[in-house]
């Protein structure tokens, strides 16, 4: 096996130091909304109405407030909390949105309209159906005109979003806002995607020296093992080399369910954020494997 890994040049081998400067997350299970307590890094129940009281939305036109999907609302709330924490209202940063299924429930409604008796599609459903709808609404509500990308890759979507964000920082950006989120799926033909709760999380990533540091991205490793033995060899070598703990080993999250029960393609961001207090004594690793092919990603993080 020659150099089987693509690795972000973060860490001691390069001059690039990528820090997590602010975090936020919300999760909706059933009719209960939970939000990340940014000091204690645990999920706490909050009033569901906060999704209608997003600060950005005060300035948003009425048509937008009526049309926002649950994913867009959670996106706005999460970003709002992440930026409030840093007091960086006017900071312009490229935005990377990682979502595996995008606005799949809107697509489900469109399919039903197409194939049902209506045989016509609502224009607002159609404009809401694109993967980047939440970023478009966010830009309008906040007048942000910076570059924006939307990344998808099944249950590794958050990890690939992080890869995209860090590559931008490596290419000279000072800050990147990464948001990862997926809705619970209510469309029958999409059920195999296994998403039974709404989840959205945000990381403010920065190379700047003047922002707070919650944790440091020590590396992102991509690997495509040919078999189980290669996979184990790869995982063990990384763990041994960095004396790391594995984040997914912990089950409890002080929230509505155990970490194993976070049934959402963006679960990786929940595993990262809900373990940051507990595990960040040494380097910690988030090991994620694709559910449709051999791809795997390992994210290494270090305490500040």
């Amino acid at each position, binding site marked *: 096996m020659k*150099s*089987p*890994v*693509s690795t*972000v*040049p973060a860490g001691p081998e390069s001059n690039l130091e990528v820090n997590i400067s602010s975090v936020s997350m919300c999760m909706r299970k059933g009719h209960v909304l939970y939000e990340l307590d940014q000091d204690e890094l645990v999920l706490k129940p909050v009033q569901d109405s906060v999704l209608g009281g997003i600060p950005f939305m005060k300035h948003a036109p009425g048509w937008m407030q009526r049309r926002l999907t649950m994913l867009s609302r959670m996106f706005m709330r999460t970003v709002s909390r992440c930026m409030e924490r840093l007091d960086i209202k006017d900071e312009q940063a490229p935005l990377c949105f990682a979502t*595996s*299924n*995008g606005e*799949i429930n809107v*697509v489900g409604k*469109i*399919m039903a309209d*197409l194939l049902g008796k209506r045989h*016509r*599609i*609502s*224009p607002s459903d*159609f*404009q*809401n159906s*694109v*993967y*980047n*709808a939440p*970023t*478009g*609404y966010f*830009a*309008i509500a906040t007048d*942000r*005109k*910076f*570059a*924006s*990308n*939307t*990344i*998808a*890759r*099944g249950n590794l*979507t958050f990890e*690939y979003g992080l*890869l*995209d964000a*860090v*590559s*931008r920082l*490596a*290419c000279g950006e000072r800050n990147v806002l990464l948001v990862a989120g997926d809705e619970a799926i209510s469309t029958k*033909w*999409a059920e*195999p*995607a296994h998403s039974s709760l709404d989840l959205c999380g945000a990381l403010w990533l920065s190379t700047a020296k003047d922002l707070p540091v919650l944790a440091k991205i020590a590396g992102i490793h*991509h690997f*495509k093992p040919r078999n189980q033995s290669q996979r184990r060899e790869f995982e063990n070598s990384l763990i041994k080399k960095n004396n790391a703990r594995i984040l997914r080993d912990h089950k409890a999250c002080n929230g509505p369910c155990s970490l194993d029960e976070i049934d959402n393609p963006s679960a990786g961001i929940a595993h990262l954020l809900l373990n940051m207090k507990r595990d960040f004594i040494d380097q910690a690793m988030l090991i994620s494997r694709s*559910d*449709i*092919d051999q*791809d795997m990603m390992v994210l290494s993080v270090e305490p500040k």
Partner: protein
Amino acid sequence: MKYGNQLRSKVAVTSFQTISSLGIGNQETLHSLERGVTCLTKDHPLADYAGCPIGPVRNELTKLPPTFKDYDTRCNRLAASCLESLSVQVRDLKSRHESSRIAVVTGTTSSGFRDLEDKILGGLDLGDFDYRSTIPVGSVASFISKAFGFDGPSMTCSTACSSSGNAIITACNLIYSGICDAAVVGGFEALARTTLMGFKSLRVIDPEPCRPFDAFRKGMNLGEGAAVLIMERVYGQDKGQGAFIAGYGSSLDAHHMTAPDPSGLGAETAMAAALARAGVTAEDIGYINLHGTGTILNDAAEATAINRLFGNKTKCSSTKGMSGHLLGASSAFETVLCIISLERGFAPNNTGLERLDPEMDIEILDEPTAIDKNSLVMSNSFGFGGNNTSIIIGRA
């Protein structure tokens, strides 16, 4: 020229291929570009869904082997057909780089929608339908990596009509940052009833072949197709072969979900960022392949932005009058059109144009026109959510 050696030592496009209503492969596409006539037709069962001509791919596409049954969609068959015709170049690419250092970055908006529609409308059993490997847009990148043996990172960008523009930008960032040495970048889009009816619901469809920038334009037509670019890091003074990505820029309009900012500010920001990254000025651009969908608002906003940044002397055209709008595939597709025409030293005409909108003070080409083969060209793509990308390409 000032952009010369410095930029040519970075990301080269060493091979490329395209499939669309203009033809299968680069040669047929070139002939269509030289003829400059529309390839849009109403003679197709899906045309009725939007009540207008469309740009379908009529040739039979590569059938996926049984081992890829779960990935079998028209979108993935378009991708497979495009990549199979690059098999020699892919083999050479793998001989130059370790497979784990070759990324796959795709752009699409609808992935397997067409196939889902076919199954549901045909009353077929959805029991063997694998959602995860057909509908989420990320499955397209997974399919290409798996089917063609690329072991590097693979992901999909989905930002509506600028999807494959962002795929090109993402690939450049992966290569520049040292995460990868090369990337297989593609835009793939299959015509789907939902998108045809969706645009119809927005009332932005021209019932006749579209005529971007024309005084009497009524809207757009949709097409389908695939375009693949093999992008590689080229070191030192090696000029590489084919073409190179000189610069790229992106922006958000922050104006409206489907309508462009009439001031053209978002489009201008993306184009200006691309110029700045390339280290060139507007005068260095010999031709601009416009987003030019044919809708009243889109064309007006883009013309305003072009005029402000480039004045009215830079040669411009939209090729959507020939191919229709390939949505998520359009940026990669039109980037390939730019490379094909630049190699032959001409800029394609703006098909469908009869009388230029008098409000537009830009140089729209009404016939294929010679350009300097050594000039830089720009390709614009603007999407829903106000997502704008601009790519600058040169010949190696």
